[in-house]
């Protein structure tokens, strides 16, 4: 690893110190289909980055490009300043990957698989592997052939976590896990973050991303449509104010930046973008029995981006 660092040009070495992932105008076409259009992505070291998008948005394509499994149609991708296509091997020594659909060897047992993958990675933490096997309640003597999808997913996850790689690339890693294992997974990711590992979590499970990620990118039809910390994304979106009245809900008349919706016979739901003052002032004249204000959930932000998704 250090050799590679020494070989890098000086311009890249600073970037390498800060950024774990960087893509520049990264695009991929499969024949006529544009899977990814001019993606510019920067993930800093130590960051947990949530990569959101519905099925077919281009999440797996991004990961395949980052791993050098597919070749960019144009643009470039780099891990730790190392080009993903030209220099995959050096990058892979510092990366561990969990595929959405775990493709492992049916005739090997779980233990043999972990052993094999650890050796190919150039070693892993044996004590940590044992601990993970215990935490994820994995039966090491079972052949992969006889395992359910969730259990195969656990093997793949344990193999990746046990390498203690600097960067974890996870493609919908919990799609087959039960709620208990989902909890174990979240703990492991938090521990990885505490150790300073970078995590790139591709997912469409919003609660998971909300719980784990520092920053979120939202992908739609091959394009990054929004990006930022949850805080930033919320600021850009509407705030939700839910109000219950003593009598029938009054009509407040038009207010700038406020979208009203009935939420029952005595309740209203207001989506406020911008200042909240005018709404409060208007409400003051009415018999309000309860008022709650909250920031939009990630789900609401996400759905907001997909409301008009048919247009592209």
């Amino acid at each position, binding site marked *: 690893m250090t050799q590679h660092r020494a070989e890098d040009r000086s311009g890249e070495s600073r970037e390498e110190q800060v950024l774990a992932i960087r893509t520049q105008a990264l695009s991929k076409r499969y024949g006529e289909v544009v899977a990814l259009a001019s993606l510019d992505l920067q993930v800093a070291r130590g960051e947990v980055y949530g990569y959101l998008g519905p099925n077919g948005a281009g999440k797996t394509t991004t990961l*395949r490009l980052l*791993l*050098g*499994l*597919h*070749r960019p149609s144009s643009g470039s991708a780099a891990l730790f300043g190392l080009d993903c296509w030209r220099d*995959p*091997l050096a990058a*892979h*020594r510092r*990366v561990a*990957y969990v*595929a959405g*659909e*775990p*493709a*492992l*060897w*049916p*005739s090997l*047992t779980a*233990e*043999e698989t972990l*052993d*094999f*993958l650890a*050796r*190919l*990675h*150039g070693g892993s933490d044996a004590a940590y592997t044992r601990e993970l096997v215990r935490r994820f309640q994995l*039966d*090491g*003597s*079972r*052949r992969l*052939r*006889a395992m359910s999808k969730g259990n195969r997913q656990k093997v*793949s996850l344990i193999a990746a976590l046990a390498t203690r790689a600097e960067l974890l*690339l996870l493609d919908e890693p919990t799609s087959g896990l039960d709620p208990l294992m989902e909890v174990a997974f979240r703990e492991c990711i938090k521990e990885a973050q505490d150790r300073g590992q970078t995590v790139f979590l591709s997912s469409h499970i919003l609660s998971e991303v909300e719980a784990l990620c520092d920053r979120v990118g939202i992908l739609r039809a091959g394009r990054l449509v929004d990006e930022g910390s949850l805080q930033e994304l919320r600021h850009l979106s509407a705030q939700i104010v839910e109000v219950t009245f003593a009598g029938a809900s009054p009509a407040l008349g038009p207010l700038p930046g406020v979208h009203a919706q009935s939420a029952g016979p005595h309740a209203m739901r207001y989506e406020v973008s911008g200042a909240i003052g005018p709404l409060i002032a208007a409400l003051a004249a009415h018999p309000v029995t309860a008022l709650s204000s909250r920031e939009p959930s990630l789900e609401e932000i996400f759905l907001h981006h997909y409301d008009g998704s048919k247009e592209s």
Partner: protein
Amino acid sequence: MSLAGRALARRAWRDARVRVVAFGYLFLIYAYVQPVGYRHAYPSLADRAAFARSFGGNTAIRLFYGQPHDLLSIGGYCAWRVSGTLTIAAAAFGLLASVRALRTEEDAGRAELVLAGALGRTAAYRSSLAAIGAGIAVLWVAELAGSLAGGLALGDSAYMALATVSVAFVCAGIGALACQLAPTRRVALDIGGAAVGLLFVLRVVADTAGGAGWLRWATPLGWAEELRPFAGARPLVLVLPVLAGVLLLGLAWRIALRRDIGTGLLRERDSAPARPGLLSSPTRQALRGERSSLAVWLVSVGAFAFILGTISSSVSAVGVSKKIQQEIARLGVGSILTPVGYLSFVFLFFVLAISLFACAQLSAARREEAEGRLETLLALPATRGAWLGGRLLLAGAAAVILSLAAGLFAWVGAASQGQSIALSRMLEAGANCLPAALLFLALAALAFALLPRAASGIAYTLVVLAFLWQLVGSLLGAPRWLVDLTPFQHIGLVPAQALRTGSAVVMLGIAALAAACALAVFRRRDILGQ
């Protein structure tokens, strides 16, 4: 058949159509070429009589084409040549088609989906059988059309084609039963392949060893001979394949009704203590995965070579006139009237077998990619070049072992009968298989790099076409350069002749070039799923 049943049958048919069409072309062309070639090579009755005297009794020829019943008529000749080869192809087709329709879907988990729907097990089984039956019907039509185009009579041609596909029917039954016994598709193919191989060996022994003719009744390949198209047809014999096929398919159906989906009657253990051997690199792990299949190949090649070695001692030129010996020499099959000449001739079939082995190895590599495991490997610090290079080295090394084993065991067989052939010459005969086999391996690798999804089909087709072209190309009077295109034309008949070093070097050179191109192209392409 219900609507759902018909939909499923159509689905199974679509899965199989590429193979059906490929085999269909083989049947069509082969059935057409034989009558045309016979007329071309033996225009007069005198020619035919001389041919019949020389070839009819020759052990080497009978080994592959079976026992001839009438070599003086075009029909009789075709029945011998066409049926002899195409029944073997039909056997392979029956087995592959039934394992594909009855087990591959199940291993992929799609059978569960089907059975969770409005379709019962019997209906699903019947739909799969309908698709297999349609494939067999296509082969029947293809052989019939080829024979008709070659100028043979309609009724007799139809009967001859029926004799050929009767083997496919029985072998489909064998495959169906293997699918119920085996825990996985792969084991089903192994079991079925071993059974079909045994039936072939039975026919070989029946047709070549003195006093063993009765064994012909123990194998569907022998029944096809005993149906005797164009030579005093005996249609009653058809009862045997029909009965055997129905029994096998019925038995398989009974088991299919009771068995847990995704398992077989033979259970594999689902848990095992870890064995850390052969896990330190992708290539070693590939060896670990392939070793049972390698062992099957080694045992088959060794056993077959041993049998051929044993038979070789019974070959002799006693009673064959000088003139006919010259005739045989002119046909380009060497001096097959001596044990050494005979072994030289049959070793051409080991070239074929080991080339097909190379194709199978490349198919296994492609499956690794198609099923996503290559992605798992390449996301680790493993390079594409090391992976593909390792697979090629593994296949090449296995081909070397198989070739030398063929030579060794043929020598053991011959020596056991008191033949005095030098071991070194027989090992050389084995090594003589390698240049062509490695060439086909490298070409298969190139196909894999360029067109991964079609690679398996291309590789197998290339080998089979090259082999058939060598058999029939010169018979048809094709121009020399066209005949010379097939690598099989450039293989010396070792041990009767010397190893053709020049040709071997050229083939190995092309192989090295193709392999280098394959590696270069593979480095630059996307890793593709199914």
